[in-house]
């Protein structure tokens, strides 16, 4: 595996240019700049809101300074509330080439698109000359999520990802699992896996927070499609989803944008703190993927039974298909056929090893199905968090 060493010591497995719109009003201009180029080299991200939000600001900082990102073009309308100069300062301080175009000052749509395209051309030429360095298993941060789950997800793909997580973490990588609302009912078991009792108590509290939050909203993360796939209740979905975490001790509890301080298994708390303010925590799977990436994930392992086809901007998404019939129906979209376990044609350990090998191949430059198909979904919405307490990362404090 080879990649790109960044000034903060992290290594990227991709070396892309980000074009980021800072309000929906700049979205079209940013898209017109990005779509001119090879989809694999230039990715489009952005925040649509006009009103300031500390979470969105921090997420954009983390995403623009993600190790897979080599250069950043910011596109502002000019009158939105986003702190564009603050973001530009953070990206410049990270050592990356960066530019800010303000549409209202750059001559409008046509002129800004032309200037943006020219800047991206130059950035791509510069990035092509950056030397690569070896990437070791311990340099990897891998996130996992399940979406479009059905009754097979918890039997095949999720526990197979758990096996892959165990192997990756044993080799020094960091693994991040998430969605405390999908871990309702598992909090006691998770607390027992925490490296300190204080971290265990934080994990129980965060699941209780999620249960309270979703109760206020009237329902959990359970979607109608989950029921069509044979799952009936939130706690049933939780039991299957939890298997993605494998069997490693839980080393810490992160909030979106917090980086794992070292290798190990981490739980990402995606449910906002305080009163229910901005609606549903994550409106679709891609919002969770974006949070995993903001917390440093260079690769995402995505378990699906019903057949999600999404990818993501910034980090490649590996699709692990739980249901053998879905795999036969959507072969171009699925990277791993974990449904073989359902039919007795493979076991969990075999598929776990296969997933680990694919993680290494993708880190070495191999394209995932969703990358090859051009998927670069991206969602960032309003949220609010309070910083994680010292008990959440015990080893860093020690």
């Amino acid at each position, binding site marked *: 595996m080879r990649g790109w060493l960044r000034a903060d010591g992290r290594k990227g497995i991709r070396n892309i240019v980000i074009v980021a719109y800072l309000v929906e009003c700049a979205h079209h201009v940013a898209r017109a700049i990005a779509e001119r180029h090879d989809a694999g080299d230039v990715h489009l991200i952005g925040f649509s809101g006009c009103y300031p939000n500390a979470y969105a600001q921090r997420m954009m900082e983390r995403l623009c300074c993600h190790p897979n990102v080599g250069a950043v073009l910011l596109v502002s309308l000019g009158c939105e509330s986003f702190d564009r100069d603050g973001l530009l300062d953070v990206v410049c301080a990270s050592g990356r080439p960066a530019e800010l175009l303000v549409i209202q000052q750059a001559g409008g749509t046509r002129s800004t698109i032309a200037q943006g395209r020219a800047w991206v051309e130059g950035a791509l030429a510069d990035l092509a000359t950056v030397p690569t360095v070896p990437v070791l298993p311990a340099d990897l941060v891998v996130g996992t999520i399940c979406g479009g789950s059905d*009754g097979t997800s918890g039997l095949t793909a999720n*526990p197979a990802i758990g096996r892959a997580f165990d192997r990756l973490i044993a080799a020094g990588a960091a693994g991040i699992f998430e969605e405390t609302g999908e871990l309702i009912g598992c909090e006691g078991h998770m607390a027992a896996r925490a490296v300190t009792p204080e971290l265990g108590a934080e994990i129980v509290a965060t699941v209780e927070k999620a*249960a309270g939050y979703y109760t206020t909203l009237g329902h959990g993360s359970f979607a109608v499609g989950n*029921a069509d796939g044979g799952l*009936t*209740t939130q*706690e049933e979905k*939780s039991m299957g989803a939890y298997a993605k975490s494998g069997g490693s001790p839980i080393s810490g509890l992160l909030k979106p944008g917090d980086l794992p301080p070292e290798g190990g298994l981490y739980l990402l708390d995606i449910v906002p703190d305080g009163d229910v303010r901005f609606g549903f925590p994550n409106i679709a799977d891609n919002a969770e993927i974006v949070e995993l990436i903001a917390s440093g994930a260079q690769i995402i392992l995505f378990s699906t039974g019903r057949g999600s086809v999404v990818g993501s901007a910034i980090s490649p998404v590996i699709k692990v298909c739980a249901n053998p019939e879905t795999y036969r129906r959507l072969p171009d979209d699925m990277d791993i056929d974990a449904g073989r376990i359902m039919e007795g044609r493979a076991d*969990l350990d075999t598929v776990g090893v296969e997933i680990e090998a694919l993680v290494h191949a993708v880190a070495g430059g191999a394209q995932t199905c969703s990358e090859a198909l051009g998927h670069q979904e991206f969602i960032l919405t309003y949220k609010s968090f309070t910083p994680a307490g010292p008990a959440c990362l015990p080893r860093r404090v020690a």
Partner: protein
Amino acid sequence: MNHSRAALSSAECRWAGTGLAAEIAQARHVLLLDPADNVLLALADLPAGLCIRDGDTTIALIDAVPLGNKLARMPIAAGSKVIKHGAPIGSATRAIAAGALVHLHNLASDYLATPATERAR
């Protein structure tokens, strides 16, 4: 609500671990995830009327049970817990006969409403 949450918190959240593949390979139509479970998981689309083996017992399916769905392996009284993965996944909203599909029409979460539930009832 508080009572059921406490009960779930204390339940060990288990999932199928080592040996799952062997269990799946041996079972023809259904999978028992944990000996404590009162439901079986369909490993294929199973038609109503099909007779399936559950240990030494034979169960005739009352309903069609699609792949990934659950069927009752014993009678489940209204209000009692449905157990899968060895842990409660909700409560029966009506009496469920052995061999019946267990889903939105007869099972509800002890934590959070399922969006499709009202439509299904």
